[in-house]
């Protein structure tokens, strides 16, 4: 019965209703089906909303990023990259993937992020690379490049961070096994993440190369 809430979410996302509304309705419905009194649901709502304020930390970066953007940060990022010869969208993003993944593996999670790095720097750099190579950048391709920039940040972060021993995920799993009296070792857990981390890098780097080829085909190189 409680799965009705999950079903509501899926229907809502498929029919493209506003996600914030769908999520709230699903939470209320799920709570009521489970027999939690409505006042208690609202209280739990408020409690969870407050505890999870850290999720909205991006707000604190807005004044700096906004001010720098007003003064041409994105244009400057794009300009710097366009001066490098043989630069391509795929190469810019593969380089960022490497930095992001290795950084996360060393525990440097705060090295990147969407509001502070992708929007002001990485996306404009990738767009700059496309502009200098093709001399033009239609909206459709611009949107794809931006989506790739955001995806690169996520993939680098996710498959890098579990290589670092003191990350939340590793500590959580170790704690869980301890509770169940199963001997486990955080260092070994982190090390056994390395094969997947390398595989993820290779796969995504190949996909970025293919993305370059696709752009070449669609936009044609300027030198040709």
């Amino acid at each position, binding site marked *: 019965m409680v799965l009705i809430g999950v079903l509501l979410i899926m229907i809502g996302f498929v029919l493209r209703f506003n996600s914030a509304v769908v999520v709230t309705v699903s939470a209320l419905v799920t709570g009521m089906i489970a027999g939690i009194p409505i006042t208690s649901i609202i209280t739990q709502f408020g*409690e969870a909303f407050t505890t999870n304020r850290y999720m909205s930390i991006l707000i604190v970066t807005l004044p700096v990023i906004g001010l720098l953007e007003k*003064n041409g940060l994105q244009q400057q990022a794009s300009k710097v990259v366009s001066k490098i010869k043989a630069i391509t969208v795929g190469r810019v993003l593969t380089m960022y993937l490497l930095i992001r993944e290795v950084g996360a593996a060393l525990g440097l999670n705060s090295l990147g992020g969407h509001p502070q790095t992708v929007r002001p720097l990485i996306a404009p750099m990738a767009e700059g690379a496309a502009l200098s190579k093709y001399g033009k950048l239609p909206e459709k391709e611009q949107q794809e490049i931006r989506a790739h920039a955001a995806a690169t940040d996520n993939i680098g972060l996710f498959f890098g961070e579990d290589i670092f021993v003191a990350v939340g995920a590793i500590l959580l799993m170790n704690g869980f096994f301890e509770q169940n009296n199963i001997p486990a070792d955080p260092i070994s857990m982190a090390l056994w993440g390395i094969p997947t981390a390398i595989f993820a890098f290779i796969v995504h780097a190949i996909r970025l190369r293919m993305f370059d080829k696709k752009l070449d085909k669609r936009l044609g190189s300027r030198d040709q």
Partner: protein
Amino acid sequence: MIFSVEMIYVLMGIIVLGCSLYIFTDRTNSRRLTTGSFYLIYSITLMFGKIIPPFYIGLMVIIMVLIIAGGGLKKSEHVEESITVKEERRKRLGGRLFLPAILIPILTLAGSKLLDGVKIGGKALLDPSNVTMVALGLACLTAIIFAMVMTRGTPAGAVKESRRLLESIGWAVLLPQLLATLGTIYTNAGVGTVVSKAVTAIIPEGSLFWVVVIFCLGMAIFTMIMGNAFAAFPVMAAGIAIPFLINQFDANPNHIAAISMFAGYCGTLMTPMAANFNIVPAALLDLKDKNHVIKVQVPTALAVLAFNIVLMYLLVSLGV
């Protein structure tokens, strides 16, 4: 402690409050009252979340969602400055524009690594409950002062620019917090137990390969439903990993842990429920399709998921 997490929330609240004041007075926005109220309420929940009783915060959240549902949240028209004006400004500062932007990660790293555990007069300098967040907040504060001096900007100007960005993110700014709330309600309502029962019911006990497949797929799917691999692990590990993989097939728990969390992350890459990673960036980058980032991620996620299944199967069956 000297710098607490609450201070950073108050700082976030002040930024949003400033944005709401600008919106209230913007006559070009036909819905300035409801839009302004949305951000005003949001800023109150950020600043005073610890003080206001949770029931009232819950009501405020519902009011915000009602404003969204009723179409009361309208983006203001922002006059895009011409390329020549921006180019002029860019030329003035050039490469120096990078400094404040780079200052944020550098100061955050330095703060969270070097100042963690530092005490002044017996008080912790940075809130031990979330050092990284406090470090990021202080780094941004330093960077904004630096940026204002460099660009000869004012605090009002900085708030005005924040408003432009905040409005371009729109209602998506609320989504990560709402989804975390949904996760809590799901847990309290017992959704996790139901899902794990359904999954364990279809387990073919004798076949190691299929147990591994269902375990890894289960991690990914559960994560897609809950939006968070952390919530999936205890449920799936208790339901499948311990009774079948570890007790029956003698798998090494360290291998299982490392690979299963990555299988969960493959799910994170494919779900709108992980709004912070997938939906908010789409809004931040002005993408027309809110699922565009997810669409780009799916092929990589599926390839890595398949790799995880094969790797886990090989490690367990070879008894490495």
